[in-house]
Protein backbone atom coordinates (compact mmCIF):
# COMPACT_ATOMS: atom_id res chain seq x y z
CA UNK A 1 0.00 0.00 0.00
CA UNK A 2 1.53 3.32 -1.06
CA UNK A 3 0.49 6.89 -0.44
CA UNK A 4 2.35 10.06 -1.28
CA UNK A 5 1.47 13.73 -0.70
CA UNK A 6 2.75 16.51 -2.96
CA UNK A 7 2.54 20.20 -2.13
CA UNK A 8 1.68 22.16 -5.26
CA UNK A 9 4.22 25.01 -5.29
CA UNK A 10 2.97 28.59 -5.39
CA UNK A 11 -0.73 27.71 -5.89
CA UNK A 12 -1.98 30.11 -3.23
CA UNK A 13 -5.35 31.41 -2.10
CA UNK A 14 -6.98 33.84 -4.51
CA UNK A 15 -5.58 32.32 -7.70
CA UNK A 16 -7.88 30.64 -10.21
CA UNK A 17 -6.85 27.10 -11.12
CA UNK A 18 -7.79 24.31 -13.48
CA UNK A 19 -6.81 20.65 -13.47
CA UNK A 20 -6.79 17.60 -15.70
CA UNK A 21 -6.07 14.13 -14.33
CA UNK A 22 -5.67 10.89 -16.31
CA UNK A 23 -4.74 7.30 -15.45
CA UNK A 24 -3.56 4.30 -17.45
CA UNK A 25 -3.00 1.72 -14.75
CA UNK A 26 -3.80 -1.76 -13.63
CA UNK A 27 -4.06 -0.65 -10.03
CA UNK A 28 -6.85 1.43 -8.54
CA UNK A 29 -5.66 5.01 -8.11
CA UNK A 30 -7.26 7.42 -5.63
CA UNK A 31 -6.46 11.12 -5.89
CA UNK A 32 -7.41 13.94 -3.55
CA UNK A 33 -6.79 17.61 -4.34
CA UNK A 34 -7.32 19.82 -1.31
CA UNK A 35 -6.09 22.79 0.67
CA UNK A 36 -6.67 24.03 4.19
CA UNK A 37 -10.21 25.14 3.28
CA UNK A 38 -11.60 22.98 0.48
CA UNK A 39 -11.43 19.53 -1.07
CA UNK A 40 -11.62 20.10 -4.84
CA UNK A 41 -11.17 16.55 -6.09
CA UNK A 42 -11.70 13.17 -4.49
CA UNK A 43 -11.67 10.71 -7.39
CA UNK A 44 -10.89 7.05 -7.99
CA UNK A 45 -10.32 4.94 -11.12
CA UNK A 46 -9.00 1.49 -12.08
CA UNK A 47 -8.53 1.19 -15.85
CA UNK A 48 -5.73 0.85 -18.39
CA UNK A 49 -7.73 3.09 -20.71
CA UNK A 50 -6.88 6.78 -20.52
CA UNK A 51 -10.45 7.89 -21.13
CA UNK A 52 -12.57 8.94 -19.44
CA UNK A 53 -10.39 11.32 -17.48
CA UNK A 54 -10.01 10.72 -13.76
CA UNK A 55 -10.97 14.35 -13.12
CA UNK A 56 -11.23 17.69 -14.88
CA UNK A 57 -12.28 20.95 -13.35
CA UNK A 58 -11.54 24.46 -12.17
CA UNK A 59 -11.99 26.59 -9.09
CA UNK A 60 -10.74 29.59 -7.22
CA UNK A 61 -8.20 28.50 -4.61
CA UNK A 62 -9.74 29.08 -1.20
CA UNK A 63 -7.07 28.07 1.31
CA UNK A 64 -3.36 27.51 1.84
CA UNK A 65 -1.02 24.55 1.20
CA UNK A 66 -2.77 23.11 -1.85
CA UNK A 67 -1.75 19.48 -2.10
CA UNK A 68 -2.33 16.30 -4.05
CA UNK A 69 -2.64 13.04 -2.15
CA UNK A 70 -2.04 9.98 -4.32
CA UNK A 71 -3.17 6.70 -2.80
CA UNK A 72 -2.57 3.42 -4.65
CA UNK A 73 -3.41 0.56 -2.25
CA UNK A 74 -2.06 -2.23 -4.48
CA UNK A 75 1.23 -0.46 -5.21
CA UNK A 76 4.33 -0.90 -3.07
CA UNK A 77 6.02 2.26 -4.36
CA UNK A 78 4.91 5.53 -5.91
CA UNK A 79 7.65 7.14 -8.01
CA UNK A 80 7.07 10.74 -9.11
CA UNK A 81 8.62 12.86 -11.80
CA UNK A 82 7.23 16.35 -11.99
CA UNK A 83 7.67 19.82 -13.29
CA UNK A 84 6.68 23.05 -11.59
CA UNK A 85 7.08 26.35 -13.37
CA UNK A 86 6.12 29.99 -13.43
CA UNK A 87 4.19 31.83 -16.11
CA UNK A 88 6.10 35.08 -16.41
CA UNK A 89 5.19 38.28 -18.23
CA UNK A 90 7.84 40.09 -20.33
CA UNK A 91 8.54 42.51 -17.45
CA UNK A 92 9.36 39.62 -15.12
CA UNK A 93 6.18 39.76 -13.09
CA UNK A 94 4.24 36.56 -12.52
CA UNK A 95 0.96 35.82 -14.33
CA UNK A 96 0.54 32.33 -12.91
CA UNK A 97 2.02 28.94 -12.19
CA UNK A 98 2.05 25.50 -13.79
CA UNK A 99 2.44 22.00 -12.40
CA UNK A 100 2.73 18.59 -14.06
CA UNK A 101 2.94 15.31 -12.17
CA UNK A 102 3.69 11.88 -13.66
CA UNK A 103 3.53 8.77 -11.51
CA UNK A 104 5.00 5.30 -11.87
CA UNK A 105 3.15 2.89 -9.59
CA UNK A 106 4.77 -0.42 -10.60
CA UNK A 107 7.94 -1.57 -12.33
CA UNK A 108 7.67 -0.86 -16.05
CA UNK A 109 8.98 2.68 -15.65
CA UNK A 110 6.59 4.19 -18.19
CA UNK A 111 5.52 6.95 -15.78
CA UNK A 112 2.05 7.09 -17.30
CA UNK A 113 0.03 5.42 -14.56
CA UNK A 114 -1.18 8.79 -13.30
CA UNK A 115 -0.78 12.13 -15.07
CA UNK A 116 -1.92 15.44 -13.59
CA UNK A 117 -1.66 18.85 -15.22
CA UNK A 118 -2.59 22.00 -13.34
CA UNK A 119 -2.39 25.72 -13.99
CA UNK A 120 -3.17 28.66 -11.70
CA UNK A 121 -3.56 32.25 -12.87
CA UNK A 122 -3.90 35.53 -11.08
CA UNK A 123 -6.62 36.51 -13.58
CA UNK A 124 -9.67 34.52 -14.67
CA UNK A 125 -11.30 34.89 -18.07
Amino acid at each position, binding site marked *: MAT*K*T*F*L*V*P*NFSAGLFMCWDMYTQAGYRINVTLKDSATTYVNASKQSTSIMPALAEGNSNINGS*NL*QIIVDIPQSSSIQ*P*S*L*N*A*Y*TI*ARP*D*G*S*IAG*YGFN*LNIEDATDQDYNDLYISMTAWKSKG
Partner: protein
Amino acid sequence: MPNVSIKVIVSNKGALINLYGLNNFNQVIDPSLTTLIGTDQGRFIQTRIVYPDDAATMNTLNAPVVANPADERQNKAAIDGVYNALNPDYLDILGAIDIIPMQSLINPAAANDGEATVPSDLPYACAQAYSTSVNDFIGPTRVIARIAGITGDASPASLVASINTACSLQARPAAKYQNPYFALSAAVWQGSSRTSTTNIFGNANALQLSPPSGPNWTNPQMLSLTHFVNCHGGDHDPQWYGQNGGGFPVAESAQLVAGKTAHGGIAAAECCYGGQLYAPNGGQAGLCNTYLMNGAAAFCGSTNIAYGPANGQGNADLITQYFLIDLLNGASAGRAMLQARQKLVQTTSPMNIYDLKTLAQFNVFGSSSNTPVQMAAHLAAKGITGTSDAEVAIAERKDRRRQLMVRGLELLTSTGIAEHDPNHRLSEALRNRLLALADEHGIPGAGIQSCPVVGGSNFLLAHSLTQASDTIHVVHGTKPEATFGKYMALIVRERGGIVISSELLLSK
Protein backbone atom coordinates in the same frame (compact mmCIF):
# COMPACT_ATOMS: atom_id res chain seq x y z
CA MET B 1 29.20 6.33 -14.18
CA PRO B 2 25.83 7.20 -12.60
CA ASN B 3 23.44 8.83 -15.05
CA VAL B 4 22.11 11.24 -12.45
CA SER B 5 23.61 13.88 -10.22
CA ILE B 6 23.19 13.49 -6.47
CA LYS B 7 21.74 16.13 -4.15
CA VAL B 8 21.49 15.72 -0.40
CA ILE B 9 19.24 17.90 1.72
CA VAL B 10 20.29 17.90 5.37
CA SER B 11 17.96 19.06 8.09
CA ASN B 12 17.12 18.28 11.70
CA LYS B 13 13.72 16.61 11.91
CA GLY B 14 13.36 17.12 15.66
CA ALA B 15 14.17 20.81 15.35
CA LEU B 16 11.76 21.21 12.41
CA ILE B 17 8.93 19.58 14.39
CA ASN B 18 9.85 21.56 17.49
CA LEU B 19 9.62 24.87 15.61
CA TYR B 20 6.82 24.23 13.11
CA GLY B 21 4.81 21.53 14.89
CA LEU B 22 4.16 17.95 13.82
CA ASN B 23 1.10 18.89 11.79
CA ASN B 24 2.98 21.47 9.70
CA PHE B 25 5.86 19.06 9.26
CA ASN B 26 3.58 16.28 7.99
CA GLN B 27 1.10 18.42 6.06
CA VAL B 28 3.32 21.12 4.59
CA ILE B 29 7.09 20.63 4.86
CA ASP B 30 7.30 16.94 4.04
CA PRO B 31 4.93 17.20 1.03
CA SER B 32 6.88 20.19 -0.28
CA LEU B 33 10.09 18.15 -0.09
CA THR B 34 8.34 15.26 -1.87
CA THR B 35 7.49 17.71 -4.64
CA LEU B 36 11.10 18.92 -4.77
CA ILE B 37 12.41 15.36 -5.04
CA GLY B 38 10.06 14.70 -7.95
CA THR B 39 10.99 17.97 -9.63
CA ASP B 40 14.70 17.27 -9.28
CA GLN B 41 14.18 13.84 -10.85
CA GLY B 42 13.00 15.62 -13.97
CA ARG B 43 16.30 17.55 -13.90
CA PHE B 44 18.34 14.32 -13.66
CA ILE B 45 19.10 15.02 -10.02
CA GLN B 46 18.50 12.29 -7.46
CA THR B 47 17.63 14.09 -4.25
CA ARG B 48 17.72 12.51 -0.83
CA ILE B 49 16.67 13.98 2.52
CA VAL B 50 18.91 13.10 5.46
CA TYR B 51 18.05 13.95 9.04
CA PRO B 52 21.24 13.83 11.14
CA ASP B 53 19.14 13.35 14.28
CA ASP B 54 17.76 10.09 12.84
CA ALA B 55 20.03 7.44 14.32
CA ALA B 56 18.90 4.66 11.98
CA THR B 57 19.73 6.65 8.85
CA MET B 58 23.01 7.95 10.20
CA ASN B 59 24.08 4.45 11.20
CA THR B 60 23.56 3.21 7.66
CA LEU B 61 25.75 6.09 6.46
CA ASN B 62 28.35 5.41 9.16
CA ALA B 63 27.95 9.04 10.19
CA PRO B 64 27.64 10.45 13.72
CA VAL B 65 24.19 11.36 15.02
CA VAL B 66 23.27 14.88 16.11
CA ALA B 67 21.92 14.55 19.64
CA ASN B 68 21.71 18.28 20.34
CA PRO B 69 20.54 20.35 17.35
CA ALA B 70 22.31 23.46 18.65
CA ASP B 71 25.68 21.72 18.98
CA GLU B 72 27.90 23.09 16.22
CA ARG B 73 30.57 20.44 16.57
CA GLN B 74 27.99 17.64 16.26
CA ASN B 75 26.42 19.26 13.19
CA LYS B 76 29.77 19.70 11.47
CA ALA B 77 30.73 16.07 12.13
CA ALA B 78 27.33 14.82 10.98
CA ILE B 79 27.35 16.78 7.73
CA ASP B 80 30.92 15.68 7.05
CA GLY B 81 29.82 12.09 7.61
CA VAL B 82 26.84 12.43 5.28
CA TYR B 83 28.98 14.10 2.64
CA ASN B 84 31.68 11.44 2.82
CA ALA B 85 29.11 8.64 2.59
CA LEU B 86 27.16 10.00 -0.36
CA ASN B 87 29.62 12.31 -2.21
CA PRO B 88 26.82 14.54 -3.49
CA ASP B 89 27.14 17.02 -6.33
CA TYR B 90 24.96 19.38 -4.28
CA LEU B 91 24.31 19.72 -0.56
CA ASP B 92 21.48 21.82 0.87
CA ILE B 93 21.15 22.76 4.51
CA LEU B 94 17.40 23.02 5.11
CA GLY B 95 16.31 25.53 7.74
CA ALA B 96 17.52 28.67 9.42
CA ILE B 97 20.12 28.75 12.18
CA ASP B 98 17.68 27.33 14.73
CA ILE B 99 17.37 24.14 12.65
CA ILE B 100 21.01 23.64 11.61
CA PRO B 101 23.33 26.19 13.28
CA MET B 102 25.97 28.11 11.42
CA GLN B 103 29.47 27.45 12.71
CA SER B 104 30.84 30.13 15.06
CA LEU B 105 34.32 30.95 13.82
CA ILE B 106 36.58 33.17 15.89
CA ASN B 107 36.52 36.64 14.35
CA PRO B 108 40.10 37.47 13.27
CA ALA B 109 39.18 41.18 13.33
CA ALA B 110 37.61 41.09 16.80
CA ALA B 111 40.20 43.49 18.23
CA ASN B 112 38.73 46.18 16.00
CA ASP B 113 35.00 45.60 15.61
CA GLY B 114 34.39 43.71 18.83
CA GLU B 115 32.49 40.81 17.27
CA ALA B 116 33.77 37.70 18.99
CA THR B 117 32.66 35.25 16.33
CA VAL B 118 31.55 35.03 12.70
CA PRO B 119 28.49 32.83 12.05
CA SER B 120 29.37 30.86 8.93
CA ASP B 121 28.38 28.01 6.63
CA LEU B 122 31.94 27.98 5.23
CA PRO B 123 33.06 25.01 7.37
CA TYR B 124 30.24 22.89 5.88
CA ALA B 125 31.77 23.63 2.45
CA CYS B 126 35.13 22.25 3.57
CA ALA B 127 36.41 18.74 4.21
CA GLN B 128 38.49 19.82 7.21
CA ALA B 129 37.24 18.71 10.63
CA TYR B 130 35.48 20.94 13.17
CA SER B 131 37.47 24.00 14.16
CA THR B 132 36.73 27.56 15.25
CA SER B 133 39.58 29.04 13.20
CA VAL B 134 38.86 30.47 9.74
CA ASN B 135 42.46 29.58 8.84
CA ASP B 136 41.43 25.92 8.74
CA PHE B 137 38.80 26.57 6.06
CA ILE B 138 40.69 28.29 3.25
CA GLY B 139 40.31 25.32 0.88
CA PRO B 140 36.55 24.89 0.29
CA THR B 141 35.60 22.05 -2.05
CA ARG B 142 31.86 21.46 -1.61
CA VAL B 143 28.88 22.91 -3.48
CA ILE B 144 26.55 23.84 -0.65
CA ALA B 145 23.87 26.41 0.16
CA ARG B 146 21.18 26.95 2.76
CA ILE B 147 17.44 26.84 2.12
CA ALA B 148 16.61 29.27 4.89
CA GLY B 149 13.38 30.00 6.66
CA ILE B 150 12.91 32.82 9.13
CA THR B 151 14.64 32.10 12.43
CA GLY B 152 12.16 31.46 15.23
CA ASP B 153 9.09 31.86 13.00
CA ALA B 154 6.64 29.04 13.70
CA SER B 155 4.96 29.50 10.33
CA PRO B 156 6.57 27.28 7.68
CA ALA B 157 5.66 29.80 4.94
CA SER B 158 9.16 31.23 4.51
CA LEU B 159 10.85 27.84 4.42
CA VAL B 160 8.27 26.43 2.01
CA ALA B 161 8.61 29.54 -0.19
CA SER B 162 12.28 28.74 -0.74
CA ILE B 163 11.51 25.07 -1.40
CA ASN B 164 8.82 26.13 -3.87
CA THR B 165 11.32 28.38 -5.63
CA ALA B 166 13.66 25.41 -5.99
CA CYS B 167 10.76 23.41 -7.49
CA SER B 168 9.54 25.98 -9.98
CA LEU B 169 12.78 27.71 -11.01
CA GLN B 170 13.53 27.50 -14.70
CA ALA B 171 16.76 28.79 -16.17
CA ARG B 172 16.47 31.83 -18.41
CA PRO B 173 18.93 33.39 -20.88
CA ALA B 174 21.73 35.44 -19.31
CA ALA B 175 20.54 38.54 -21.15
CA LYS B 176 17.37 38.58 -19.03
CA TYR B 177 19.51 38.84 -15.89
CA GLN B 178 22.00 41.34 -17.30
CA ASN B 179 19.59 43.93 -18.62
CA PRO B 180 17.82 45.52 -16.91
CA TYR B 181 19.62 45.15 -13.59
CA PHE B 182 19.23 46.88 -10.24
CA ALA B 183 22.48 48.15 -8.69
CA LEU B 184 22.45 50.39 -5.63
CA SER B 185 25.32 52.06 -3.81
CA ALA B 186 25.87 54.42 -0.94
CA ALA B 187 26.90 57.63 -2.74
CA VAL B 188 30.16 57.70 -0.83
CA TRP B 189 31.17 54.35 -2.37
CA GLN B 190 30.14 55.08 -5.93
CA GLY B 191 33.67 54.64 -7.34
CA SER B 192 34.00 51.08 -6.07
CA SER B 193 30.38 50.30 -6.96
CA ARG B 194 30.85 51.53 -10.53
CA THR B 195 33.77 49.17 -10.90
CA SER B 196 31.82 46.23 -9.44
CA THR B 197 28.75 46.99 -11.54
CA THR B 198 30.83 47.25 -14.71
CA ASN B 199 32.59 43.99 -13.89
CA ILE B 200 29.24 42.25 -13.35
CA PHE B 201 27.07 43.78 -16.09
CA GLY B 202 29.51 45.36 -18.54
CA ASN B 203 28.35 48.89 -17.69
CA ALA B 204 27.33 51.02 -14.74
CA ASN B 205 24.60 52.99 -16.52
CA ALA B 206 21.83 51.87 -14.18
CA LEU B 207 23.73 52.28 -10.91
CA GLN B 208 21.56 54.10 -8.36
CA LEU B 209 23.06 56.20 -5.60
CA SER B 210 21.73 56.81 -2.10
CA PRO B 211 21.36 59.65 -1.47
CA PRO B 212 19.58 60.97 -3.44
CA SER B 213 17.61 57.91 -4.59
CA GLY B 214 15.49 55.33 -2.73
CA PRO B 215 13.94 53.70 -0.89
CA ASN B 216 10.74 53.85 -3.01
CA TRP B 217 11.96 52.03 -6.10
CA THR B 218 9.79 51.55 -9.17
CA ASN B 219 8.22 48.21 -10.03
CA PRO B 220 10.50 47.73 -13.08
CA GLN B 221 13.55 48.39 -10.91
CA MET B 222 12.42 45.87 -8.30
CA LEU B 223 11.51 43.31 -10.98
CA SER B 224 15.02 43.38 -12.47
CA LEU B 225 16.26 39.84 -12.11
CA THR B 226 19.68 40.75 -10.70
CA HIS B 227 20.17 43.00 -7.68
CA PHE B 228 23.55 44.22 -6.46
CA VAL B 229 23.73 46.42 -3.35
CA ASN B 230 26.70 48.18 -1.76
CA CYS B 231 25.24 50.04 1.21
CA HIS B 232 25.38 50.14 5.00
CA GLY B 233 23.46 47.66 7.12
CA GLY B 234 22.82 47.16 10.82
CA ASP B 235 22.40 44.36 13.31
CA HIS B 236 18.79 43.02 13.32
CA ASP B 237 17.86 45.82 10.92
CA PRO B 238 15.43 45.27 8.00
CA GLN B 239 16.80 48.30 6.11
CA TRP B 240 19.96 49.19 4.24
CA TYR B 241 21.36 52.72 4.23
CA GLY B 242 23.14 55.07 1.89
CA GLN B 243 25.72 57.64 2.88
CA ASN B 244 26.95 61.00 1.77
CA GLY B 245 28.97 62.73 4.44
CA GLY B 246 27.38 62.22 7.84
CA GLY B 247 23.86 61.38 6.61
CA PHE B 248 22.60 57.82 6.32
CA PRO B 249 19.23 57.80 4.50
CA VAL B 250 17.27 54.57 4.02
CA ALA B 251 18.24 53.10 0.65
CA GLU B 252 16.26 49.86 0.67
CA SER B 253 13.61 48.63 3.07
CA ALA B 254 12.31 45.10 3.57
CA GLN B 255 8.82 46.45 4.11
CA LEU B 256 8.89 48.12 0.68
CA VAL B 257 10.58 45.19 -1.04
CA ALA B 258 8.13 42.55 0.24
CA GLY B 259 6.22 41.09 -2.70
CA LYS B 260 8.04 43.32 -5.20
CA THR B 261 11.14 41.48 -6.44
CA ALA B 262 11.07 38.83 -9.16
CA HIS B 263 10.56 35.11 -8.74
CA GLY B 264 13.85 33.53 -9.78
CA GLY B 265 15.80 36.71 -9.09
CA ILE B 266 19.36 36.75 -7.75
CA ALA B 267 20.91 39.20 -5.31
CA ALA B 268 24.19 39.99 -3.62
CA ALA B 269 24.57 42.53 -0.83
CA GLU B 270 27.87 43.87 0.47
CA CYS B 271 26.10 45.43 3.45
CA CYS B 272 26.97 44.63 7.05
CA TYR B 273 24.49 42.00 8.26
CA GLY B 274 23.06 41.73 4.72
CA GLY B 275 22.78 37.95 5.09
CA GLN B 276 21.90 37.86 8.78
CA LEU B 277 19.10 35.37 9.53
CA TYR B 278 17.87 37.18 12.62
CA ALA B 279 14.65 36.32 14.43
CA PRO B 280 12.22 39.21 13.83
CA ASN B 281 10.12 38.19 16.84
CA GLY B 282 6.93 39.33 15.18
CA GLY B 283 8.54 42.35 13.54
CA GLN B 284 9.83 42.80 10.00
CA ALA B 285 12.08 40.02 8.72
CA GLY B 286 15.41 41.06 7.23
CA LEU B 287 15.99 41.87 3.57
CA CYS B 288 17.68 38.51 2.98
CA ASN B 289 14.59 36.60 4.13
CA THR B 290 12.36 39.04 2.25
CA TYR B 291 14.13 38.44 -1.07
CA LEU B 292 13.87 34.69 -0.47
CA MET B 293 10.17 34.93 0.41
CA ASN B 294 9.69 36.78 -2.87
CA GLY B 295 11.16 33.81 -4.71
CA ALA B 296 14.83 34.72 -5.06
CA ALA B 297 16.82 31.83 -6.48
CA ALA B 298 20.02 32.84 -4.72
CA PHE B 299 21.03 35.51 -2.22
CA CYS B 300 24.60 36.18 -1.06
CA GLY B 301 25.19 38.28 2.04
CA SER B 302 27.15 38.73 5.22
CA THR B 303 26.21 37.55 8.71
CA ASN B 304 27.87 40.47 10.50
CA ILE B 305 30.09 43.56 10.04
CA ALA B 306 31.62 43.52 6.56
CA TYR B 307 34.45 45.56 5.08
CA GLY B 308 35.63 47.10 1.86
CA PRO B 309 38.44 49.45 0.86
CA ALA B 310 37.92 53.20 0.92
CA ASN B 311 39.28 53.25 -2.64
CA GLY B 312 39.49 50.45 -5.17
CA GLN B 313 38.22 46.91 -4.70
CA GLY B 314 38.58 44.31 -2.00
CA ASN B 315 36.82 42.12 0.56
CA ALA B 316 33.01 42.40 0.22
CA ASP B 317 33.38 44.01 -3.24
CA LEU B 318 35.17 40.93 -4.52
CA ILE B 319 33.21 38.03 -3.10
CA THR B 320 29.83 39.51 -4.10
CA GLN B 321 30.84 40.29 -7.67
CA TYR B 322 32.56 36.93 -8.11
CA PHE B 323 29.32 35.29 -6.97
CA LEU B 324 27.08 37.22 -9.37
CA ILE B 325 29.46 36.86 -12.32
CA ASP B 326 29.52 33.08 -11.92
CA LEU B 327 25.74 32.92 -11.58
CA LEU B 328 25.39 34.97 -14.76
CA ASN B 329 27.71 32.50 -16.48
CA GLY B 330 25.29 29.68 -15.70
CA ALA B 331 26.61 28.32 -12.40
CA SER B 332 24.27 26.95 -9.76
CA ALA B 333 23.91 28.95 -6.55
CA GLY B 334 26.12 26.52 -4.64
CA ARG B 335 28.81 26.38 -7.30
CA ALA B 336 28.85 30.16 -7.72
CA MET B 337 29.46 30.51 -3.98
CA LEU B 338 32.17 27.85 -3.95
CA GLN B 339 33.94 29.50 -6.89
CA ALA B 340 33.59 32.94 -5.28
CA ARG B 341 35.14 31.66 -2.07
CA GLN B 342 37.99 30.00 -3.93
CA LYS B 343 38.67 33.11 -6.04
CA LEU B 344 38.68 35.32 -2.95
CA VAL B 345 41.30 33.10 -1.30
CA GLN B 346 43.39 32.94 -4.46
CA THR B 347 43.16 36.69 -5.15
CA THR B 348 43.91 37.92 -1.66
CA SER B 349 46.70 35.51 -0.66
CA PRO B 350 48.51 36.24 1.58
CA MET B 351 45.19 36.84 3.32
CA ASN B 352 44.98 39.47 6.03
CA ILE B 353 42.61 39.13 8.98
CA TYR B 354 39.88 41.12 7.17
CA ASP B 355 40.13 38.89 4.10
CA LEU B 356 39.64 35.91 6.41
CA LYS B 357 36.62 37.52 8.02
CA THR B 358 35.15 38.21 4.57
CA LEU B 359 35.66 34.59 3.55
CA ALA B 360 33.84 33.38 6.65
CA GLN B 361 30.96 35.83 6.79
CA PHE B 362 29.47 35.65 3.27
CA ASN B 363 27.05 32.80 2.70
CA VAL B 364 24.55 31.80 0.05
CA PHE B 365 20.85 31.16 0.53
CA GLY B 366 18.56 29.18 -1.78
CA SER B 367 18.92 25.61 -2.96
CA SER B 368 22.49 24.81 -4.01
CA SER B 369 21.25 23.42 -7.34
CA ASN B 370 19.19 26.51 -8.20
CA THR B 371 20.49 27.50 -11.63
CA PRO B 372 18.72 30.67 -12.71
CA VAL B 373 20.76 31.37 -15.84
CA GLN B 374 21.05 29.04 -18.80
CA MET B 375 24.55 27.77 -19.31
CA ALA B 376 26.18 28.11 -22.70
CA ALA B 377 25.54 25.13 -24.99
CA HIS B 378 27.50 22.10 -23.86
CA LEU B 379 29.17 19.22 -25.64
CA ALA B 380 25.86 17.76 -26.81
CA ALA B 381 25.77 20.51 -29.38
CA LYS B 382 28.80 18.90 -30.95
CA GLY B 383 26.59 15.98 -31.91
CA ILE B 384 27.95 12.94 -30.09
CA THR B 385 25.88 10.08 -31.47
CA GLY B 386 24.26 7.87 -28.87
CA THR B 387 24.88 10.19 -25.94
CA SER B 388 22.01 12.24 -24.59
CA ASP B 389 22.19 15.91 -23.63
CA ALA B 390 21.51 14.91 -20.04
CA GLU B 391 24.36 12.41 -19.96
CA VAL B 392 26.76 15.01 -21.31
CA ALA B 393 25.52 17.63 -18.83
CA ILE B 394 25.97 15.22 -15.92
CA ALA B 395 29.48 14.28 -17.09
CA GLU B 396 30.40 17.95 -17.39
CA ARG B 397 29.08 18.56 -13.87
CA LYS B 398 31.32 15.78 -12.56
CA ASP B 399 34.27 17.37 -14.39
CA ARG B 400 33.55 20.71 -12.73
CA ARG B 401 33.27 19.10 -9.29
CA ARG B 402 36.62 17.38 -9.80
CA GLN B 403 38.25 20.64 -10.91
CA LEU B 404 36.80 22.56 -7.96
CA MET B 405 37.99 19.90 -5.55
CA VAL B 406 41.49 20.05 -7.01
CA ARG B 407 41.48 23.85 -6.72
CA GLY B 408 40.30 23.69 -3.10
CA LEU B 409 43.01 21.21 -2.19
CA GLU B 410 45.63 23.35 -3.95
CA LEU B 411 44.55 26.40 -1.96
CA LEU B 412 45.37 24.61 1.28
CA THR B 413 49.02 24.37 0.25
CA SER B 414 49.38 27.49 -1.86
CA THR B 415 47.72 30.14 0.30
CA GLY B 416 49.47 32.50 2.66
CA ILE B 417 47.82 33.79 5.81
CA ALA B 418 48.84 36.77 7.89
CA GLU B 419 48.34 35.42 11.38
CA HIS B 420 48.25 37.77 14.34
CA ASP B 421 51.23 37.23 16.61
CA PRO B 422 50.75 39.09 19.91
CA ASN B 423 54.44 38.56 20.71
CA HIS B 424 55.72 40.10 17.49
CA ARG B 425 58.34 42.76 18.24
CA LEU B 426 57.88 46.03 16.44
CA SER B 427 60.81 48.45 16.13
CA GLU B 428 60.22 51.91 17.50
CA ALA B 429 60.80 53.39 14.04
CA LEU B 430 58.26 51.13 12.40
CA ARG B 431 55.70 51.70 15.16
CA ASN B 432 56.05 55.45 14.68
CA ARG B 433 55.73 55.04 10.92
CA LEU B 434 52.52 53.03 11.33
CA LEU B 435 51.05 55.54 13.76
CA ALA B 436 51.93 58.36 11.38
CA LEU B 437 50.12 56.54 8.58
CA ALA B 438 47.12 56.07 10.87
CA ASP B 439 47.15 59.77 11.59
CA GLU B 440 47.28 60.56 7.85
CA HIS B 441 44.12 58.48 7.34
CA GLY B 442 42.34 59.93 10.36
CA ILE B 443 42.19 56.67 12.28
CA PRO B 444 41.43 57.58 15.89
CA GLY B 445 42.99 55.77 18.85
CA ALA B 446 44.90 53.43 16.61
CA GLY B 447 45.78 49.94 17.81
CA ILE B 448 48.33 47.81 15.99
CA GLN B 449 48.20 44.09 15.25
CA SER B 450 51.29 42.58 13.63
CA CYS B 451 50.71 39.49 11.55
CA PRO B 452 53.68 37.56 10.12
CA VAL B 453 52.76 35.66 6.97
CA VAL B 454 52.55 31.89 7.30
CA GLY B 455 50.90 29.39 5.00
CA GLY B 456 50.76 26.01 3.33
CA SER B 457 53.76 24.03 2.13
CA ASN B 458 53.89 25.38 -1.42
CA PHE B 459 53.35 28.93 -0.24
CA LEU B 460 56.17 28.66 2.30
CA LEU B 461 58.48 27.13 -0.30
CA ALA B 462 57.85 30.01 -2.72
CA HIS B 463 58.03 32.45 0.19
CA SER B 464 61.54 31.32 1.10
CA LEU B 465 62.82 30.92 -2.48
CA THR B 466 61.71 34.42 -3.48
CA GLN B 467 62.62 35.94 -0.12
CA ALA B 468 59.28 37.77 -0.26
CA SER B 469 58.88 37.56 3.48
CA ASP B 470 56.12 39.95 4.53
CA THR B 471 54.59 41.01 7.77
CA ILE B 472 51.17 42.56 7.53
CA HIS B 473 50.37 45.16 10.16
CA VAL B 474 46.79 46.12 10.85
CA VAL B 475 46.36 49.59 12.27
CA HIS B 476 42.78 49.89 13.43
CA GLY B 477 40.54 52.39 15.12
CA THR B 478 36.92 53.25 15.81
CA LYS B 479 34.81 56.34 15.31
CA PRO B 480 32.46 55.82 18.26
CA GLU B 481 30.16 58.66 17.26
CA ALA B 482 29.47 57.23 13.79
CA THR B 483 26.08 55.54 13.10
CA PHE B 484 27.57 53.31 10.40
CA GLY B 485 31.05 52.82 9.01
CA LYS B 486 32.57 53.27 12.44
CA TYR B 487 35.38 50.71 12.09
CA MET B 488 38.54 51.60 10.16
CA ALA B 489 41.59 49.47 9.46
CA LEU B 490 44.77 50.31 7.59
CA ILE B 491 46.37 47.19 6.12
CA VAL B 492 50.12 47.80 5.85
CA ARG B 493 52.52 45.38 4.18
CA GLU B 494 56.07 45.56 5.48
CA ARG B 495 59.09 43.74 4.11
CA GLY B 496 62.42 44.04 5.89
CA GLY B 497 61.32 47.15 7.75
CA ILE B 498 60.13 48.90 4.59
CA VAL B 499 56.45 49.71 4.14
CA ILE B 500 55.58 48.52 0.61
CA SER B 501 51.83 49.08 0.51
CA SER B 502 48.89 50.26 2.54
CA GLU B 503 45.14 50.05 2.05
CA LEU B 504 42.39 51.63 4.15
CA LEU B 505 39.35 49.44 4.91
CA LEU B 506 36.02 50.74 6.19
CA SER B 507 33.15 48.81 7.69
CA LYS B 508 29.98 48.73 5.57
